[in-house]
């Protein structure tokens, strides 16, 4: 089989996984189903990163989103409901206007995308990006890098302060 055809099939498979699980996140009534839909969305986006030749970013996506953020969200679900309440349902409201707005946003985005003549640099061979990203972070982006580290420290202290039990 032609490799280009094969890669197209795999691409459409991961795109379908991403969008279908994102739809599960949005439309499922059960919070647990939403969280597991989010898991597959993150995996699908990581696979799309691999297609785009961003190997380091794909690994980062798996480690931080799946290993960190998703676990935090699951903690949030579990800690804010009674544990014997197995059907953790969530209410929805304003569904019809939101569907209209969603379709309008999607339409406008796709329309704008179609009418723009994107500059295309042409296909390039994918190369390992980790060393290049490390060099960029330490040379061109050193100030944002340091600011991000301070931001993480502030978030750590702030989150601990907010959930701390006040002394009575």
């Amino acid at each position, binding site marked *: 089989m032609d490799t280009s055809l094969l890669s197209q099939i795999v691409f459409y498979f991961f795109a379908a996984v991403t969008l279908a699980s*994102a739809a599960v996140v*949005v439309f499922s009534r059960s919070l647990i189903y939403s969280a597991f839909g989010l898991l597959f969305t993150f995996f699908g986006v990581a696979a799309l990163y691999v297609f785009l030749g961003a190997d380091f970013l794909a690994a980062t996506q798996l480690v931080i989103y799946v290993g960190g953020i998703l676990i935090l*969200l699951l903690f949030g679900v579990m800690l804010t409901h009674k544990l014997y309440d197995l059907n953790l349902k969530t209410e929805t*409201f304003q569904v019809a206007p939101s569907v209209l707005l969603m379709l309008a946003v*999607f339409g406008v985005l796709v329309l704008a995308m179609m009418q723009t003549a994107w500059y295309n640099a042409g296909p390039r061979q994918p190369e390992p990006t980790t060393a290049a990203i490390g060099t960029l972070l330490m040379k061109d982006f050193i100030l944002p890098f340091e600011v991000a580290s301070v931001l993480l420290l502030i978030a750590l202290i702030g989150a601990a302060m907010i959930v701390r039990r006040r002394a009575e």
Partner: protein
Amino acid sequence: MIGLGHYLVISAALFSLGIMCVLTRKNAVSVLMGVELILNSANLNLVAFSKYAAGNLNGQVFAIFIIIVAAAEVAVALAIVLSMYRMLRTVNLDRADTLKG
């Protein structure tokens, strides 16, 4: 052939699904999940442009910074949600109307 347009359409769909999630859910944790979808769609756009348009890795570095900010955001937001649950015994966002006059 898979081009830039395919990624942009996927990203637009993820973005609109995230908007839908943020608008319709009453549960605070569900709203956070929608915000994560929106951030992922922005990241996908940045990485796609980094490959097809720019020809350098700046887009990927931007995506890394977005991931960092998303991690910090979700930690602080969940701290706020847990604090709200402790005070109000619910995470329904309609009930968080203490500031309403």
